[in-house]
């Protein structure tokens, strides 16, 4: 098997008296897609927020390659190669679609305050390259037609794709998608699954995917990790996980 890209070890996090994460550990290998599933309140998004440094776990370890993520600030996460989307969209409503996608390239680009104010040629060159790159990503995801529309007011499914485009614009090693199929109709979900698979294969991305749409997760994932009440209850190939008794229990709701 290929190298481990993301390694999560014994993450514990409590909010007051509520145990949100109760020591889950797993590895994500480079170039693979890992589905992270579980019933509502299982701790999937909480784990996402630990990895992207929005929450600070009480204990445990998260590494990306050789980097200890827990030593970084939130704004350094993009630099080590992590991009994410948000469950209920984290787009900038007053910006156009193109600008939202351009914002994804922020961490890769260097034009600072002074050079920008002085209008140095390097700033213009960088902006030109970025606009070209953003248009390419938009084209790739079939969003060129809405490039100049303000993000606020576009259909939900379109915005989900815009957010994916912004994450790709960051050129990450690890792409974290929080319920990308949420609010999409069935055909769109399958299309999205193909897109994600294609991105992983063509761009050499690893993907961590939180999703409720089970057919999609099982179709697209190389590995599936199942959380329930903050604990990991299964970890394996889609087929292994599907047959796992505890998973069936958690999903079909065994009597308490």
């Amino acid at each position, binding site marked *: 098997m290929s190298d481990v890209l993301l390694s999560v070890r014994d993450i514990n996090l409590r909010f007051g008296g509520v145990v949100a994460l109760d020591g889950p550990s797993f590895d994500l290998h480079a170039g693979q897609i890992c589905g992270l599933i579980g019933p509502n309140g299982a701790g999937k*998004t909480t784990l*996402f*927020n630990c990895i*992207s440094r*929005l929450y600070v776990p009480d204990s445990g370890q998260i590494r990306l390659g050789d980097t200890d993520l827990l030593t970084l*600030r*939130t*704004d*350094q*996460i*993009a*630099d080590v190669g992590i991009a*994410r989307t*948000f*469950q*209920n*969209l*984290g*787009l*900038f*409503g*007053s*910006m*156009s679609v*193109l*600008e939202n996608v*351009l*914002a*994804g*390239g*922020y*961490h890769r*680009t260097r*034009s*600072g*305050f002074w050079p*920008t*104010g*002085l*209008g140095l040629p390097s*700033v213009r060159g*960088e*902006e030109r390259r*970025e*606009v070209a790159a953003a248009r390419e990503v938009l084209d790739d995801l079939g969003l060129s037609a809405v490039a*100049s529309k*303000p993000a*606020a007011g576009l259909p939900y499914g379109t915005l989900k794709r815009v957010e994916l485009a*912004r994450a790709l614009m*960051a050129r990450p090693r690890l792409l974290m998608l*929080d319920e990308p199929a949420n609010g999409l109709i069935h055909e769109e979900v399958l299309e999205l699954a193909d897109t994600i698979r294609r991105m992983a294969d063509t761009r050499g991305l690893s993907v961590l995917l939180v999703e409720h749409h089970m057919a999609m997760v099982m179709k697209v994932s190389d590995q599936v990790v199942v959380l329930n009440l903050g604990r990991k209850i299964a970890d394996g190939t889609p087929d292994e996980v599907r047959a796992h008794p505890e998973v069936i229990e958690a999903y079909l709701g065994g009597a308490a």
Partner: protein
Amino acid sequence: MTSPAPATSASSRLRGGLRGLRQAQPPLDAPVWLKWATFLGVLAVAVLVPLNSAPYVNFDLSMVMIYAVVGMGLNLLIGFNGQISLGHSAFFAIGAYIAAVGIQEGWHYLAVLPVALVVTWVVGYLFGLPALRLGGLALALVTLGLAIVTPAAIKRLDEYTHGQEGINVYTATPPDWSGLERDQWVYFLCLVALALVWVITRRISTGRIGRSLIAVRDNETVARTLGVRSSRTKTAVFALSAAYAGLGGVLYVYVVQFVGPDSFGLVMAIAFISLVVVGGLGTLSGAILGAFFIVYVPEWTADINQAASGMAYGIALILFMFVMPFGLGGLVRALLRPIVERLPGRRGPLSMRTPPQAGPRVGPDESAERDRDQIGI
């Protein structure tokens, strides 16, 4: 029978118009030829007017340009980055006093300019470091405190500032080669300053930096996950806007040739806020329109009734927040849009910028929490 006749009564048209004014107005995306024509037209007027006007007119117009410089900084800070400052009159005062004291000490009047810029930038940076952690209402109150304390601090430092007496300087005399009167010379100094500030502000409000400012304003949590170090960004904008205010202070000394503590009190702080509200957030031209407002409207109202001049700002603030939260800049865009959109030669919007979704956000700093609710984390 599916489409009912459009309502044409005067009152419903008025209601529709008012609703339009309350909406955010994206940029006009005018064709390039129109932009150049506007630029050359404005330039021609700006150059010809002072050569054919009475000195008092030129001094008034110089004041408009000075306030426009301050307004552009506040626009970057409040409009683009979502941070409220009510205290930029303090930085204006620092710039003015550095100029007055420096000129009195025998410095050349242009030599005080870089000193004032650097000092106000540094003071703004140092003040911004702790203040910007507060955000929202707390930031508004802290900066209001700065505005309140300014006249008292000037009086207290009377060794340098001559306290209540103030400082008279005779400065900005036109060089012989120019053949200009003092009022004209000062006018052109202000015009050059405003043009430079306009260009710099325009660049900073677009591109990578502009996007990061708006990102921090719209959703700071998400901005941070994209790599924006929001505390740095906010401090940099605060410092820059403080330097703009400092520049305004220096130019003020060129025009007025006098500084005294009572010029830089709450009245000026309120004038700056009125400028931003009346001009409209998120449009550069709004800063100029707002500056015209705070120079001329108090004069006109004073002609009607002495007591009315103080009321102008208050009434304008109430009216604009209710009726036109995007200010005159938004009004101009709303009025010109139907015309501009019919013009040939538009290249299609490459970048789009809209003002914030609502007027300035004054409230407790729930932004982080709201961001999180919004994105579901």
